[in-house]
């Protein structure tokens, strides 16, 4: 059992607010004890109650406190507690572990917003003159003696508001299904992209190599050429197979025009990597004229920022691939700032990696032919993700069509 005290003020008897709060606690699996109660002496006097709320788990307690908070039951605000980090890359014992939700901390009796919202980090507080600044910091970036929030007292987390019914993503509850009107979902994605564009935030695209294998490469290329993507996250494979297609017309040795395996086609991807390594990278390959089409070519030509993160099974890899995972994470972390929407297509690994870095307020759509990919993303905390189980070629064709026609 975990416990928290709340206070409730106002005309809580006449309005039945106290009854409602008590009922809500009970119907949501908690129990309560009224520890202090002062009833208003006249009709215009406010009453005051202090209630100790208990629940089986911290999560249950948080959800009850959030619920009754809407009816005026507030936690007395205490300042956060902080301890210095004992060493570089080590949080103090009992550190507060963040969620991907908007968070604020109480410092000197005011709420300070925590910047760089990200799950599974600590909160580090720094002084900027008289002002205190709080931000989410991943474990490997904390420095010895940084002031780190410990415990959850004085930390306030704001759940993602339910989207307005008029919001295009509102009919997309956070669940996975193949039983959905897919074209409608693509249309909603397009509208969301336009909205994000209008507010000046970034559109992040995360892609896997199946985009190239299924023949959807030219669709993504067209979307990039039309300026609809600000940041691309992928691995060695997407870039390699895209470049293989550009240089040899094959993907994993299969001719993308005829569908037939090309002679010695299985070597093509290695030869493609070798060719790029020979000129020093993707950008030099574009500048020298070696690479003149494809997704990566479009990124270079359109100035789209990309991060290629390596993995243990990579061939080569391409010189642009960041092989140090932590370094790759940091590169991605910097580029998701100001993201308004993340579109994840046909990759579990990079989708989960990106999801880990995103605040829950970023609209996230995950498209995969396998429901597992979406489920994994949500299981790892990216609850805001909307999953669409479909072939990536269909999705990208529709998306390119809808973006291109207007």
């Amino acid at each position, binding site marked *: 059992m975990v416990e928290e005290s709340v206070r409730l*003020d*106002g*005309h809580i008897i*006449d*309005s*039945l*607010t106290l*009854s*409602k709060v008590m009922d809500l606690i009970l119907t949501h699996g908690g129990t309560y004890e009224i520890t202090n109660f002062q009833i208003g002496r006249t*009709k*215009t006097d*406010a009453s005051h109650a202090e209630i100790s709320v208990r629940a089986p788990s911290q999560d249950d307690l948080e959800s009850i406190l959030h619920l009754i908070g*809407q*009816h*005026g039951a*507030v936690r007395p605000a205490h300042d956060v507690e902080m301890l210095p980090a004992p060493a570089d890359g080590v949080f103090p014992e009992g550190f507060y572990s963040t969620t991907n939700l908007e968070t604020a901390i109480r410092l000197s009796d005011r*709420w300070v917003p925590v910047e760089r919202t990200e799950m599974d980090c600590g909160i580090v507080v720094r002084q900027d003159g008289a002002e205190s600044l709080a931000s989410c910091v991943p474990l490997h970036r904390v420095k010895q003696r940084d002031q780190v929030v410990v415990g959850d007292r004085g930390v306030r987390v704001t759940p993602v508001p339910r989207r*307005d*019914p*008029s919001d295009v993503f509102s009919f997309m509850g956070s669940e996975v299904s193949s039983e959905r009107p897919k074209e409608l979902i693509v249309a909603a994605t397009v509208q969301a992209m336009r909205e994000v564009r209008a507010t000046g935030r970034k559109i992040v695209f995360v892609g896997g190599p199946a985009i190239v294998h299924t023949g959807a490469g030219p669709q993504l290329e067209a979307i990039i050429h039309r300026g609809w993507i600000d940041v691309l996250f992928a691995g060695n494979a997407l870039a390699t197979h895209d470049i293989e297609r550009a240089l040899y017309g094959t993907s994993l040795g299969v001719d993308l025009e005829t569908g037939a395996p090309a002679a010695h086609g299985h070597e093509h991807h290695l030869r493609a990597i070798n060719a790029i390594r020979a000129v020093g990278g993707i950008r030099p390959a574009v500048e020298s004229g070696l690479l003149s089409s494809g997704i990566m070519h479009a990124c270079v030509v359109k100035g789209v920022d990309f991060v290629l993160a390596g993995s243990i099974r990579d061939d080569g890899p391409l010189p642009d691939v960041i092989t140090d995972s932590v370094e790759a994470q940091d590169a991605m972390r910097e580029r998701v700032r100001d993201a308004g929407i993340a579109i994840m297509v046909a990759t579990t690994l990079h989708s989960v990696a990106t999801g880990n870095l995103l605040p829950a307020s970023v609209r996230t759509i995950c498209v995969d032919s396998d429901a597992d990919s979406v489920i994994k993303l949500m299981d790892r905390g990216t609850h805001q993700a909307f999953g669409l189980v479909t072939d990536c070629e269909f999705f990208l064709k529709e998306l390119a069509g809808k973006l291109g026609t207007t």
Partner: protein
Amino acid sequence: MDFAVSTHRLLMCAPDKYGLLYEINPWMKLEVQPDVALAATQWQELHRVLTQEVQAEVQLVDQADGAPDMVFTANAGLLSQGRVLLSRFRHPQRQVEVPYFRKWFEERGYDCLEPPEEVYFEGEGDALFAGEILLAGYLKRSDIRAHQWVAAELGVQVLSLELTDSRWYHLDTALFALSPNLIVCYPGAFDEYARLVLEGNFETIKVEEEEALQFACNSVVLGDTIVMPAGCPKLKSELESRDKTVYTVEMSEFLKCGGACKCLTLFLR
């Protein structure tokens, strides 16, 4: 200036820059735009009925650029004895209205108060007097914590009523008081506790959903006279059977933004 309590002094804002530019309630659909010329005609008729038929004193505030909902003056704040409890709108789209209203009030000698930090309050839209009691809506727009503030500032009893249906997002879309003991309301807009509170404290005239959707409850009460939206014949005849004088005004173009007669007026007290 004269702060004498009068239920017949109102603030209105002519719809010179009215429009539907965003969607912040279920009534607003960007593809269903109001006819602004017709809206102006409807507003003029409401103004005429209030000033000439009812002989209320109506003051006007100019509509600012980029504040299309400023016509709904009920949401500017809650007034009592020369003090204005200013609004803090939940939606940023409407927060732009506050400085314009504030300026208008301050220039006329009103004492303006802001809600406490991080508390939303949408003025008379969510706060209506029934005699000495203030009925106050919350959850959709105003926070219940605003009620504590209003109660403390005005020294009145506040009954907090939870609104549960986004179509009746402000209290004044679902309820009005005819007298200290008699209210008109659409019960479907409230949670069960609020319904118990209303039934326990007042005699209630219940509006059916069909008329509640025509904003029957968004009516202006001026003594024994009620100015209400057209298209609500059942409530109209109920009120007339209670010896009330009823005027109806076509409000179709304001309904497209989720407002009607009451939303377009604010009591100056």
